[in-house]
């Protein structure tokens, strides 16, 4: 499927791995800008990332500085004014923490864990997939058996198993997400690499007697990237959702670094008494985050799909 894209992206004399020419980037941007929904989704995503990065400067209070919390402000409804005259736009949680500040800080943990684990999984999965696609034989069959095994087990089960044994914590959640995710990258990379391996530019690189690692990473990898970019985006969204689920179950991030999932879990106790906002608002932000990533990813897939060109 990428055979057509490479003929335009990589000229046959690609002995030196050239970065994609500027007009390719410009063409991609133009294609991307054609979908207003995707542009809006991208804007929302960037806004959320900026909010997470600049959290200490934009939040009304530091939600984890106990000096700034007042238990008298506990479980105030959205829009109410607290004991000390402060306005709580989205209300407060059971400890009198401003929910808006809590959400923005929670976004930090969610994004960090989601993007971090997706990148590590991409690194491992792509390398293994590339190796499996480039080197036939035993390496390939070993990697693909592992991929099959991993993909046949439901993600949540693998993650539960790892966290049940290792215990909770940010590092263990990242580990669980990486183990769950790497196989998808490996499978995609191998499928693309198998097709690319037969192209002339690889043959040319081989006849120059370039070392195998140079061919793999400088020549094969850049041409396998388009489908991987899409997968990585969708996987970031999936990782964020899975982390939220695990944290909700009490197996994810610790209470000292709450993610959106843990914030939702905190509100769970109060939901039957009608205190809806503690669970609802972090969930809405989670929702917007996941959907915006998915919309961007879907559109990028449409652009990169050679059948649509």
């Amino acid at each position, binding site marked *: 499927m990428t055979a057509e894209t490479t003929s335009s992206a990589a000229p046959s004399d690609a002995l030196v791995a050239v970065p994609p020419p500027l007009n390719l980037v410009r063409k991609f941007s133009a294609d991307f800008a054609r979908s207003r929904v995707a542009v809006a989704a991208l804007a929302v995503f960037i806004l959320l990332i900026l909010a997470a990065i600049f959290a200490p400067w934009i939040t009304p209070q530091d939600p984890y500085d106990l000096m700034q919390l007042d238990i008298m402000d506990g479980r105030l409804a959205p829009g109410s004014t607290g004991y000390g005259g402060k306005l709580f736009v989205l209300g407060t949680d059971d400890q009198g923490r401003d929910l808006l500040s809590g959400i923005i800080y929670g976004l930090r943990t969610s994004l960090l864990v989601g993007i971090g684990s997706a990148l590590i999984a991409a690194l491992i999965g792509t390398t293994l997939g590339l190796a499996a696609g480039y080197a036939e034989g035993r390496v390939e069959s070993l990697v693909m058996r592992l991929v099959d*095994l991993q993909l*046949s*087990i*439901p993600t*949540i*089960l693998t993650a*539960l*198993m790892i*966290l*049940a*044994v*290792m215990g909770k914590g940010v590092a263990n959640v990242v580990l669980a997400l990486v183990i769950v995710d790497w196989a998808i990258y490996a499978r995609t990379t191998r499928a693309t690499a198998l097709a690319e391996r037969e192209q002339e530019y690889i043959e040319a690189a081989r006849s120059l007697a370039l070392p195998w690692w140079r061919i793999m990473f400088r020549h094969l990898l850049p041409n396998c990237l388009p489908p991987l970019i899409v997968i990585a985006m969708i996987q970031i*969204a999936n990782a964020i*959702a899975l982390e*939220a*689920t695990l944290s*909700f*179950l*009490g*197996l994810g991030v610790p209470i000292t670094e709450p993610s959106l*999932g843990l914030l*939702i879990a905190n*509100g*769970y106790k109060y*939901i*039957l008494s*009608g205190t*809806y906002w503690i*669970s*609802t608002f972090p*969930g809405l932000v*989670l*929702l917007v985050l*996941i*959907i915006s990533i*998915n919309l961007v990813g879907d559109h990028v897939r449409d652009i990169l799909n050679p059948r649509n060109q």
Partner: protein
Amino acid sequence: MASWLIRRVFQALLVVFVMTLLVFVAVNLIGNPVDIMISPNATQAQRLETIRALGFDLPLWRQYLAFVDNLFHGDIGDSFVFGQPGLHLIAQRLPATLELAVSALLLSVLIGIPLGLLAGLYPNRALSQMILGGSILGFSLPTFWVGLMMILVFSVELGWLPAIGRGQTATVLGTEWAFLTWDGLQHLILPALNLALYQISMVLRLTSAGVRETLHKDFIKFARAKGLTWRRIVWVHVLKNILIPVVTVIGLSFGGTIAFAVVTETVFSYPGMGKLLIDSINLLDRPVIVAYLMIVVLIFVTVNLVVDLTYVLLDPRVRLGDRE
């Protein structure tokens, strides 16, 4: 056919074997088996005695053989919390989870296929666009949050359905089932719907894609030329041809449904084995965790085997192709 069957069964056994190995390694190598199997309150003498009694002084491969041997006898060790065999505890909770998972599966078929047919037959209608758009939400929304919102809307605000628990059960063949009582059914609706959301979206999309593809096939044109009624074409000729991928996906996702029931059961405080698993993880009750993992793997492998067999029965091409 026979050789295929043997190969397939062998493959299933291999997966079970690998899983026992993984669980064994996970429990015995990563965690300290002594800490896992022996209560932290035990004295040193008790510890040494239990270590000998449980065979932790033996080499690893003999321990693994003993572990597998015990598995065959259904002995995974007693729960630290309940003092009962772990397998027994899980087996007690199994009917509740199965009930939930099967209900979710039924819902995904009963809701997913009609909606998918609608969206596939009339792709340009606004309703179809809404259905397909909604299915994207079903894919990407985190299940647990949707469950919370369902509780908030249907239980807290509207007061239509109970939010937590399993309700009244009726005993049939020595097992308690909730779907046989009105109260139990009411308790089942929200969790089953919550668990089914992902499946509904998947079945819906598969059905609609299948319908759109099938409608352009020659045999449909032929059926129309023959003067068959539209209803017969859709319900017999189209549906029959899209059923294979749908059945496969529904079947293959059954194991995933049981695993994801962990989330739904936690949200709705539904007393199934998934809730027990989460409680056990929080209490570090390892024998129950091992029992859960082994049972789920067994269910999973069995279901996949059955799906493959059904696949062969449904699609003559697979059957005949193998004979050549």
